[in-house]
């Protein structure tokens, strides 16, 4: 028998929320835990299939090596690029709240 996915814990949901920068209140945690458990249960149905001899794949399309030549194509003018920015400095830079540390 294929294994069922272990149900997700409220701690794991809180961790995932933090990673995704979602502000979830304690009162919402139980609801999201139940929702995510249902999603995982659904995915676990796949485990019921007989997949012996089926190679894992990273992509559903039977395509390989889709590429382009190394040639310059027109991009955006700077004013166009900055038009969508939340804030701009000197008409040259995207401006964001001060970032400390070396994350990433």
């Amino acid at each position, binding site marked *: 028998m294929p294994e069922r996915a272990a149900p997700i814990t409220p701690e794991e949901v809180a961790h995932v929320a933090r990673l995704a920068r979602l502000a979830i209140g304690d009162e919402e945690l139980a609801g999201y835990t139940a929702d995510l458990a249902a999603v995982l249960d659904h995915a676990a149905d796949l485990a019921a299939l007989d997949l012996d001899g089926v190679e894992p794949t*990273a992509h559903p399309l039977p395509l390989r090596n889709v590429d382009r030549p190394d040639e310059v194509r027109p*991009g*955006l003018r700077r004013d166009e690029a900055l038009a969508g920015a939340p804030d701009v*400095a000197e008409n040259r*830079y*995207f401006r964001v709240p001060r970032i400390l*540390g*070396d994350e990433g």
Partner: protein
Amino acid sequence: MTGGSGPYEAVIGLEVHVELATVTKMFCGCPNAFGAEPNTLVCPTCLGLPGSLPVLNRAVVDLALRFGAALGFRVPETSIFARKNYFYPDMPKDYQISQYEEPILVDGRLEVDGAVVGIERAHLEEDTGKIIHVGGGGRIHDAACSLVDYNRAGVPLMEIVSRPDLRSADQARAYVSELRAVLEALGVSDVKMEEGSLRIDANVSVRRAGSTVLGTKVEIKNMNSLRSLGRAVDHEVHRQVALLEAGGSVTQETRHWDEEGGVTQPMRTKEASHDYRYFPEPDLVPLAPTPERLGRVTAALPELPAARRARLRREWGIGEADARTLVGRRDLADYAEAAVAAGAPGAAVANWCTGEILSHLNETGVSAEVLPLAPDGLAELVALVGDGTLSRPLAKDVLAECLREPKRPRQVVAERGLAQVSDEEELGAIVDEVLTRHAAEVEAYRGGDDKTRKRKRGFLMGECMRATRGRGNPQVLSRLLDERLA
């Protein structure tokens, strides 16, 4: 190195990031260029705007495969791209496209001074944008903020991960130096460290000499030159040995090299910052280089630095040190070979190229390809020394002028009346005049012991040379002087 309680061994692995020498970025048609005005090399794809999709640049793959073929990597049948998820404004998509579990190249090796250094893998990833931190009280005074330039976002990088096969700071430097020469020879990267096209992180641990167990490793970041790599690794090895000798233990952590202080320091770490949640990039299909493509790449491989050094030593009769200096810069080696092709002897060309010409390139920061003196001009200079027209010191002056402005050596010689004087009558008269002027010295020479004679002769020879304004043929002058002093 040796601690109070016995010898230790350093175990070092390096991660080298090189920028690939493509015309455009990795997944879009924006130019891959250095030094442009901020945010002028951007498009919807590298800005991560909704609806845009990445398309892989063919040249990125070809350059990686070329590197792989040169260093004996295995190319897995397929490799895939993954999303590395993190929130930081240097990537507008909130993820970086990278290769994670299935890189394009695995299991290569590079020979460094007779030792084989294993390379675990090399994978492709896109570079991030550049963040400029602006403090309160700076030019922008309203609030402390950060500015972002996305010109580099999406520039293709290859990360080359060595095995922990390196045993000293010197060997680590030698490895990077050889790797750099290979990348340059292959045309895979410009390898300009000062422009950020080559960046290094080091994993360093120490253990008792003879032990086969790995110690706790520390990752060091922010080394931006070969020199700082050597200093940082040396410092870290000493720090770890001192810790162990004092009965302490090494903590697994990431440390930052402080170039000015000459120390490594712990980096601020953020909770869960390494939970990148990699998953296959759904917008890109797998990469599966065909045998035909691999064959084409292998057939087109240029001569590698080690082979070139061996050939120059053999054909020109030069030493390993000179060969290493020349081949360490492809532009210089190409220049020297072109001068030899123009008829000059290799040893003389190597001498000029590793001396005055290399100094000039280092001082001015230009490439040998754009020197005002073309390679056949250097061949002309070498010929002028060879046939006795110019002494070596005069030739140096001529070269300096030819490196300043586009003039041929013969032209400079003619303009400045520099041709070396070998005429015995003319030089004889000059020697006679010098000996008359310095009669007391001649007296001292004749009556002195060996040491005095040697000194006085040197003085008189210098005066003769000076009287010819440096143009006298030294061999002829020397003979005429000795004849008269005898």
